[in-house]
């Protein structure tokens, strides 16, 4: 496996490719375990489909990585509609992880994804520990995958998802089971819905996770007062968008104190300032989620804005910002 990741890295960094890790004199490359990202700006799972849908609107090879919608072993139909509802400065969704399953994904989407110059990260889930491991094994065998993101935090499914991410024993089991079957970098996608994220971050790291992504959506609800019915068919859903950013920043900061592995920060990023705030709080990379829905250029604007910020502050390497928050006066 190592050689595959290595080849991916070198492919990413190969000179002459459109994506230069160093953009005009500043080094933007960051490490997520053994995976090098050309820049720290990824897209968040479930907000970018399988990449191909946005290929006409932006150059995917400019991104730090493409993260695909959560995939389970078998196809998943998902929840009834309505599945999303707009709220103040945010969105609540309850998609229910609709997806083509591993085979469907490999057939329909992998041929395109593997042509990308930037890493493709596969977000996976299951309803049992064994299913997570099965899916991980399949993607390990596929070859060329950048990393696996273990979604143990989806609030919108009855079995699986957040049930694993809010239980210290189960989160460790999922990570350990996947670790056993693959050397691909493992990123654990954390649930915000815990009293304290530190023990969960440690549990994931100790079980062999190479990185954490923080945060998934927060359990939420909206009701139509005219009909007195929930606005989502699933009754509750997950809150995302700018409204959750201050919660996500705090969780990233807290987790960064607790573990040494890199953190991918997300939650309401709309512009470079938001992304930099996550990095200063402790994130090694960031992901743009809900903002893609209303402004698909956001990830590229964020990258450009980070470059400008680094230059303005005379910084040569984006890594200098990671965890640079200072608490003393």
């Amino acid at each position, binding site marked *: 496996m190592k050689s595959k990741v290595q080849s991916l890295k070198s492919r990413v960094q190969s000179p002459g490719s459109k994506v230069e890790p160093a953009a005009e004199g500043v080094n933007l490359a960051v490490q997520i375990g053994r995976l090098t990202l050309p820049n720290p700006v990824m897209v968040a799972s*479930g*907000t*970018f*489909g399988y990449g*191909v*849908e*946005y*290929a*006409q*609107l932006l150059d995917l090879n400019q991104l730090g990585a493409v993260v695909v*919608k959560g995939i389970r072993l078998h196809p998943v*139909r*998902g929840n*009834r*509609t*309505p*599945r*999303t509802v*707009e709220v*103040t*400065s*945010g*969105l609540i*969704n309850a*998609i229910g992880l*609709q997806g083509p399953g591993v085979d469907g994904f490999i057939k329909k989407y992998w041929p*395109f994804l593997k042509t990308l110059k930037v890493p493709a990260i596969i977000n996976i889930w299951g309803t049992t520990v064994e299913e997570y491991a099965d899916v991980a094994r399949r993607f390990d065998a596929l070859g060329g995958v950048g990393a696996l993101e273990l979604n143990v935090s989806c609030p919108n499914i009855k079995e699986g998802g957040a049930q694993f991410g809010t239980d210290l024993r189960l989160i460790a089991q999922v990570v350990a089971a996947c670790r056993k079957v693959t050397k691909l970098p493992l990123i654990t996608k954390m649930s915000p819905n815990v009293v304290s994220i530190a023990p969960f971050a440690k549990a994931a790291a100790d079980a062999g996770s190479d990185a954490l992504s923080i945060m998934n959506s927060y359990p939420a609800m909206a009701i139509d007062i005219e009909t007195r019915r929930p606005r989502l*068919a699933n009754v509750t859903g997950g809150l995302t*968008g*700018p409204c959750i950013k201050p919660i996500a920043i705090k969780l990233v900061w807290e987790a960064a104190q607790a573990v040494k592995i890199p953190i991918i920060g997300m939650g309401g990023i709309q512009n470079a300032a938001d992304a930099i705030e996550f990095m200063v709080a402790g994130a090694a990379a960031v992901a743009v989620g*809900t903002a*893609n*829905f*209303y*402004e*698909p*250029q956001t990830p590229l604007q964020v990258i450009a804005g980070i470059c400008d910020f680094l230059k303005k502050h005379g910084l040569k390497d984006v890594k200098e910002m990671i965890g640079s928050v200072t608490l003393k006066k």
Partner: protein
Amino acid sequence: MLAVPMLEQTVQIVSNERDTDSYFRLVLRAPQIAPLIQPGQFAHVRVLPLKGALLRRPFSIFQVTGDTFSILYKTVGQGTEALARMGSGEELSAIAPLGHGFTVPRRGGETPLLVAGGYGMAAMYLLAQRSPQKGIVFVGGRRRIDILCEKEFEALGWDVRTTTEDGSHGEKGLVTQPLLKELKRKAPYRKVFACGPTGMLGAVGKIAGEFNVPAELSMDEHMCCGVGVCLTCVIPIKTGDGWEYQRTCTEGPVFDAREVVWETVK
């Protein structure tokens, strides 16, 4: 999968004028988008002055003239109300053209029967205009003010049959009544195209099915991304062995009426 060419552009408002009551016509200068548009496609519009509400709003493309396209919209909530307050010269962001539109009738092919309810009329105009084969347009609404662009359909030389629920204009009743009457005539080679509220589309699909007439329906589902990534806008579509959720924004908005699993549509 990359079938539909789409662009994201900042577009300028040429005009934004009240049509009847709460309906407005918005003309946008979009030289790169305009030539790509097919009947039944839509634009996903970001109303920049909206702050707390983030999402784009989808609107059928009504007319295409030179380097502009227009939409015909009804003010129903904060997005459309903010839009109605904008004026010429101001800018919007549009992703367009989006979605899988109508099959434009061929000359000598089936006679098109267009059925439109409320702002659904907007989606039908371009189809009527681009169709070399003329036919009948059934337009319906609650009141007189919900009948839009009747004159324009007539100007295209189409046979326009109007109904209003309150009888304030045209025949009193639902738009499906004159459609039913027409289908009962049992003329051969006809095809229905419809756009309007989901209830109306269900009724139109059912009637067309009963007469064994093919029907293309433009479905109105709430949308979020508009480009196929979020899986918000799905409707149940028959497959070989059952059904699956397909995206109104990508596989649709136009679907074959026989493929929709009406029992499962909300």
